[in-house]
């Protein structure tokens, strides 16, 4: 996978993860172009499209579009599954996730994604393991915060 974008129906970017090093300018350009393309597609249309030399796989969950770019040889269906798996993870973690959860806890969304994918490849296919890793890391963080004083904990939450 080359990158993953989450954006709202209004075209606002909610999350971006790039697995290829690109300059900010290039990233912005790609994002703008893709958001436009995907939003222009009608709901009944196919979830895959060919774009430049990549394949774009996207799926809409509620008001959020999850959009991944994969290479020609990659499997579109497993990419859809990755998207779905990620949504499930968010759902489990936040408890019926909504767009606002991701907006306000965007760093958590990133942490979950990082536990799930690494360098564009799925690193952990077990949901349980991903969540366990996240919870433990969070616990570590909270403990440290508590050591340091309740204020920090409040902030992080």
């Amino acid at each position, binding site marked *: 996978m080359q990158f993953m974008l989450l954006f709202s129906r209004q075209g606002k970017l909610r999350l971006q993860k790039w697995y290829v090093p690109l300059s900010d300018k290039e990233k912005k350009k790609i994002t703008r172009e893709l958001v436009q393309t995907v939003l222009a597609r009608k709901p*009944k249309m196919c979830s*895959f499209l060919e774009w430049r030399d990549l394949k774009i796989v996207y799926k809409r969950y509620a008001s959020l579009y999850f959009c991944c770019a994969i290479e020609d040889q990659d499997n579109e269906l497993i990419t859809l599954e990755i998207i779905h798996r990620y949504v499930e993870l968010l759902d489990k973690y936040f408890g019926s996730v909504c767009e606002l959860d991701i907006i306000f806890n965007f760093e958590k969304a990133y942490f979950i994604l990082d536990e799930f994918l690494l360098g564009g490849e799925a690193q952990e296919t077990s949901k349980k393991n991903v969540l366990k890793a996240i919870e433990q890391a969070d616990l570590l963080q909270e403990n440290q915060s508590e050591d340091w004083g309740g204020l920090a904990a409040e902030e992080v939450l």
Partner: protein
Amino acid sequence: MALKMVKGSIDRIFDKNLQDLVRGVRSHREDEAKYISSCIDEIKQELKQDNIAVKANAVCKLTYLQMLGYDISWAAFNIVEVMSSSKFTYKRIGYLAASQCFHDGTDVIMLTTNQIRKDLSSPNQYDTGVALTGLSCFVTPDLARDLANDIMTLMSHTKPYIRKKAVLIMYKVFLKYPESLRPAFPRLKEKLDDPDPGVQSAAVNVICELARRNPRNYLSLAPLFFKLMTSSTNNWVLIKIIKLFGALTPLEPRLGKKLIEPLTNLIHSTSAMSLLYECVNTVIAVLISLSSGMPNHSASIQVLYTHTHRLFLKYLGLLAMSKILKTHPKSVQSHKDLVLQCLDDKDESIRLRALDLLYGMVSKKNLMEIVKKLMVHVDKAEGTTYRDELLTKIIDICSQSNYQYITNFEWYISILVELTRLEGTRHGHLIASQMLDVAVRVKAIRGFAVVQMATLLDNTTLLAGSGQHKSICEVLYAAAWICGEFSEHLEDPVHTLEAMLRPKVATLPGHIQAIYIQNAAKLFAAVLNGQQGTPDCQTMQESSQLLIDRLPLFVQSADLEVQERASCILQLVKFIQKLQHKEVEVGEEVTALFAGELNPVAPKAQKKVPVPDGLDLDAWINEPPSESESEDEKPVAVFAEEELRHARPHHTEVDEKELARRREARKQEQANNPFYIKASPTSQKDSTGVEHIPVVQIDLSVPLKVPGMSTSDKYLKLEEERRQRERKERGKKEKKKKKKREKRSGMGRRHDSGPESEEDIAPAHMVDIVTEEMPENALSSDDDEKDPNDPYRALDVDLDKPLADSEKLPVRAHRPTNILKSPADDGEVQEVPKEPKKKSKKEKRDKEEERKVRLLWLRCPNGEIQCTCTKSSKHKKKKQKKDKEKEEKKRKKQHGHSGDREGEESVQNGTLEEEPLPVCDIQGNLQNGSQVVVSIIFENKSTSFLKSMEFNVLDSLNSKLQRPEGSGPHDGLTVPFQLPPGVSNEARFIFSVQSIVMPQRLKGTLTFIVKADDSSTHEKLDFKLHFTCSSYLITTPCYSDTFAKLLESADLKGTSVRLQEVSLPFHHLLAKICFHHHFSVVERIDSCASLYSRSIQGHHVCLLVKYAHQTVTIDAKCDESSLLGNVLEEIKKTFSQS
């Protein structure tokens, strides 16, 4: 200290945290930029504090802003600070920020190396994890190089959590620092067996990704992955492995065979679409690499297709089908309906895919139906791009393989006409060229086409549309030309003539106008011709008048071509009108202007025009002009030279001044020329002039006379009826034949979807495609397809063809053995020689080795030559075996060739059993009078590998082995191949021969290395090559009168020979002589026949063979008596052997 800390945290309460920022951004929708710039100022302040918590908070906010599209690269150093915090909470934020905004160009990355290394070795696995995650996003070549070793150590970490991440990140490291791959790979491979499934799948992931780019290097892992594939239940892993196999199979087809079964099982058992899809993809790859069809794949497509209800699968299914279509078109055809359904899809990408597929799916049977569907889509298509795509596809589909699938051209023409109604299409020229092509090449359709084209011309919509949509009026170009060229089919030429000369025509592009005018003239000629002889000459005069009235408009055209043609024809018509007034009949003369039929020319025609004798295309026609030659000195130049001079240096000689002068002159001239339309004002006037002319606008809502949908439907229906009728008729006949048919259909040839099979549909009878024209006396024999270099052709020769009439005769005999042959019949024999020329050129060297005498075949440009090759076999160890082989070879020899006897003399000088045993059928080609090409087949009958074979022959005065330039006269030639056990191969050598009147015997040796498991030994084989005189003869046909003349001439010297006790039937005897000695029968009467042959150096050899009471008398004549003597001697030997 404590106080400071407390102070810091109190300050922070008043800072904005991330949530505040997000809320703030959301509430300042109107002036977001302004709000954010104020936030950034705050953040800058926060970053200046030394409280790490504040900094981390600031960095966290920056990360959010970065996502909104704001540049935060200025804070890179602060991010590094936060990354190096000892607290996981901040470290996490720091790494996140870094992974979001660092890239190869970020210079602070160099500062992070040590920090990252420290984190990697942290006792806390989450510190390590966070560092690895971050690194995966911003690893640079430098980082990769410095940290590769640390990461490699982590691959063996005690915690699977770390191992997994370390394995995955290795892929990124490999990409940035390829040198690390080799040292790290063994450990990576170990991870395939890791007890933790997560680590295992990570390793599979990385290796699959690596292998996908360079599959060749990973072939050796195939068995390991195969095991994993059959044992793993994790779909994610399976998909990766199967994808890997998809990349490997093209390199190793055997793997493909092995894969088919487990893959098919998976396809049938899995419920995961993604896995199914991956399996299908790999199965397709396997099928392609296997090239031989497997029955299973259609089942797998079917499986995929049963799930098309999920939309995206349609797309993938179509994708997969297009891959299959390339190799197995038949299996896809049955899904036609599904594909057609996809044309209705809302998604354009699906429709385009489906269109691509349809192209490969059409057949005679379904073409009309498919095109009808497509036409419906054309009508309702929204975007022009898609409509144009449809249009081109329709034309592509119909015209593919030379209109192979079109059974009714009337239908096709009407489709084309319907397509002209498309507004704004860019493909007018495409439709036009199709119309022209069909009308010219399908003679039978011309009548129909002309009528259709006349309606097109008559209809003004195309003209009206010409303004905006330039392209579609190209169709009129075709229409006008067809109407003019085939005007004899027009119902009302006068009317069409009128239509072609409407003032509105002047708005068309110039090249179309030019065609209009030219063809108006043709039509005029047709009208004149048609009216000839009728008492009423009013029509003729009217049409002349019409032309005279309308043409002046075109004479004023801005387009040079139009202008020229118009004025030319105008003058012509004026002249004709004058003649008409004098009541002179001019029809025929005018028609003669356009006489002669235009035929299509084959694409290769130009190439095939034979170069006339004595014409050297490379030679200068005249001496190239020498530079020094000055123009003035040559007042009287030869015409051609003059031209040459004009053609070349002319331009350069014109200087600026001269140019200006000329320009001036030209302007002057233009100003005075009434026909030249000056700059814009005039030309505008001109066009307004056109516009005054009242043009009746046709209301588009009224159905036009242009054939619409209904017409092509009509033809569709007609065609169906015709087929039905034919089917019925066939049905009647078929009842009788039914039995036979059943047998045929039992072979699986039947198409499941219809009662009617493809080949049953006969094209409508009136359609025949005119064959394309070839230049006269095009070289008839140059077969474009045959590859003259095919090395196997030579081996092909009938070795196993059953012997028809005489088991003693070798299979190669082309000649019927029992009939008198007219020389013409020998044609097929003659064909052979043509390609040897090239062969001999191509191949030079060879070696050979043999244990026995074998026969050599030589082929020469005009016939065949045999020669025998005696090879000495060497045996020491395995006498028995050798004896057996000897027998075998003997059999072969007898099988066809004289001179086998030689074999018996073979010297036994002993060699190892494992030496190669070349099969001694040798083919040779004679290139010219002094060259013989010997082809030798080497066969390794041993169980060892043979290599470094070198072939050498001891040259005689008369015959020499041709060696590459620069090598000495005694050097051997290297055989350009090696021989694994049981393999045979063929090599050729060229010998130059001076005199052909004597048979030749050449001694030679073959040296080679026998490679056994542990050792290799040098071996040597001696052999003899025997060139008989017969081998210098070329089978040449000869007519009896030529033959008689030859015999009469005094040049030939005669001799005769008598063979006793020949028990063969006479025709066998003749066949034998023909076969072995390359004669052809000139004439045969009862038991008497005359035979003829020619040597490669042009000697005639004539034989008169008489047969009576088991005695054969051969009277022979030849202009070279020693050659004749030897040939007769060889003939004698042939018969004494048998």
